[in-house]
């Protein structure tokens, strides 16, 4: 066995009882109130998306419930010129970087606009191959380094991704090339039905940094205060050329891997209850209440506002469904080859015949 836990002690500032065990650091009480408001909205959205799949409105959906603090913290220190390279569960992180929340629904619906990132927002569209994006993150960070831009890139991925070859190639490339990148692992403990202990024989993901000659950190991923402060520090250090870094945010997926599996088949309720008590929303709520910054009435208002926002997103989503299927042919190549143009014409005739 290794001594990974000893080497990489869990960084925490706000415990699960909502007590501050460290400093607020770069955060303020007001900013935390705002964070909580966003978190609450994100939770509402995520739960609604789950229901939408059950109603057949969208296809398979990967919920992020429980990982809000990790995802929000991961991007907390990024500015407009920085990059986020997310995986398919990171709708909270992408949303904070300016990707409209309906993209999470587009992704599950297979709507082509799922990757239509607003111009100026430096986020890559989600893709599903586990760990493939870690190499893209290295490439993006490498490009910014070659152009001498003072820019940080964050690439996010799950614990299962650290078993993939691409993750190791990415770690190796990043360290050899010294790119300004933060590898941000949302260790949610489960790769579908396989627990971390069956995913790897090491104690922590953070210790994998040692093999690549870079600094690693293990942070309580359900503690927004700790994650956000760590990422502020590391983002600045990355901009100063000290990267790359590996961050293991220890969190938990409170629900299923996707709408297609049932966690009841592979994990116990005791574990789920334990992690339920560590819910990132609960602890922030406890702290805000203790500060007198949150009341029951306000929560009622927050929920109403969240529901309202989700309804607005759904309206945009429904509106977008009228897109012409001919779009499928428009972005395969920059200029459509002749044979594809002829297939497009055949498809168009078929669409007219059977209806879109």
């Amino acid at each position, binding site marked *: 066995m290794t001594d990974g836990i000893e080497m990489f002690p869990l960084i925490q500032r706000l415990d699960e009882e909502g007590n501050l065990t460290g400093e607020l650091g770069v955060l303020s009480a007001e900013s935390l109130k705002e964070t909580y408001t966003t978190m609450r909205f994100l939770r509402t959205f995520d739960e609604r998306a789950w229901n939408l799949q059950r109603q057949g409105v969208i296809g398979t959906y990967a919920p992020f419930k429980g990982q809000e603090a990790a995802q929000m913290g991961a991007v907390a220190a990024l500015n407009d010129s920085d*990059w986020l*390279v997310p995986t398919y569960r990171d709708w909270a992180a992408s949303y904070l970087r300016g990707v409209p929340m309906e993209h999470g629904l587009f992704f599950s619906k297979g709507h*082509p*606009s*799922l*990757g*239509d*990132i607003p*111009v100026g927002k430096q986020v*890559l*569209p989600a*893709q599903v*191959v586990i760990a*493939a994006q*870690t*190499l*893209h*993150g*290295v*490439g*993006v*960070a*490498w*490009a*910014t380094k*070659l*152009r001498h831009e003072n820019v940080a890139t964050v690439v996010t991925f799950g614990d299962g991704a650290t078993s993939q*070859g*691409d993750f190791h*190639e*990415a770690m*190796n*490339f990043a360290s*050899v090339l010294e790119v300004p990148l933060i590898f941000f692992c949302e260790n949610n403990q489960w790769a579908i039905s396989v627990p971390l202990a069956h995913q790897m024989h090491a104690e922590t993901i953070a210790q994998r940094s040692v093999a690549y000659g870079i600094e690693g950190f293990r942070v309580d991923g359900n503690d927004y205060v700790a994650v956000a402060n760590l990422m502020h520090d590391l983002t600045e250090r990355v901009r100063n050329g000290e990267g790359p870094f590996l961050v293991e945010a220890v969190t938990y997926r409170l629900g299923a891997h996707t709408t297609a599996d049932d966690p009841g088949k592979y994990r116990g309720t005791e574990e789920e209850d334990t992690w339920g008590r560590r819910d990132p929303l609960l602890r922030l709520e406890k702290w805000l209440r203790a500060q007198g910054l949150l009341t029951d009435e306000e929560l009622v208002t927050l929920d109403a506002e969240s529901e309202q926002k989700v309804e607005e997103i759904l309206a945009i989503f429904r509106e977008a469904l009228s897109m012409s299927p001919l*779009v499928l042919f*428009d*972005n*395969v*190549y*920059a*200029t459509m*080859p*002749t*044979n*594809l143009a002829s297939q497009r014409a055949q498809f168009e005739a078929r669409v007219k015949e059977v209806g879109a």
Partner: protein
Amino acid sequence: MAKLTIAQALNQALELALAEDPSVVVLGEDVGKDGGVFRITDGLFDKFGPDRVIDTPLAESGIVGTSVGLAMAGMKPVAEIQFFGFIYETMDQIASQAARVRFRSLGRYSAPMVIRAPFGGGVKAPEIHSDSLEALFTHTPGIKVVTPSNPYDAKGLLLSAIDDPDPVLFLEPMRLYRAFRDEVPEEPYRVPLGKASVVREGTDVTLIGWGPSMALVLAAADELVAQYDISPEVIDLRTLTPLDEETIVTSVQKTQRAVVVHEAVRTSGFGGEIASIIQEKAFLYLEAPVLRVTGYDTPYPMTMFEDLWLPDTSQVVTAALSSVRF
């Protein structure tokens, strides 16, 4: 005008591209100080430095995957995969990533990158080094597949590939790198992608090939003229995706016969696609079935049986004769 080999022409193209556009970077295993195992990047490291001509760690998926990121963030990577057979290790990053960037992002991002790889057999290389796997990529929407067969095309096609806004797989016929020289203009010029070349005009049978197989197709054409008084038309496809169907169909409508030649194994090879296009678009002109001269459906054999396994000129001549005499 200087007479250059394919290897020299490619080197010149890379040098011009690096000089023309600061966003172009060359990366891969041993491409820097060593100048590449086939010396295609020779001298570039000294001229452009380690930030433009980059020796990467030994990891094919890493090379292509980071190139995808570089390209999405505005660079123009030209990645070398040392031998085409190692492309399997990059399949996800090419087929599921590079080729889909534009589609996935509804045109918001693109991956203007080139993946260069030595292609084809006949040089007595170890296992997996000589496989012809072009059909894996012609079967992959979103990527272009280009393969020159002579020095002039090699330079012009590579410069076009680097200019191209989409990912391009650029396959270099390993056996022809230094097989002969041709006149190659020193200045930059482009040979357009997607345009086949009618290398030789004829009336009796259309011989279709690409990359390394062009050497035997041309030799067979000479033999058909000299010994059998048959006039073959020879087409070098140059680009497999997008395919210049028009040139193929026009030629076959004229000659009424076709033979397709490739080194790749027969089943599901690109030759089947060509035959199918001819059947769909020139059926009533045909006087004989479309024939294929290909490798066999076995793993590529190493050194010992390689020459026996590979298609050769005599097989192309035999196929052409059997088409004409059908």
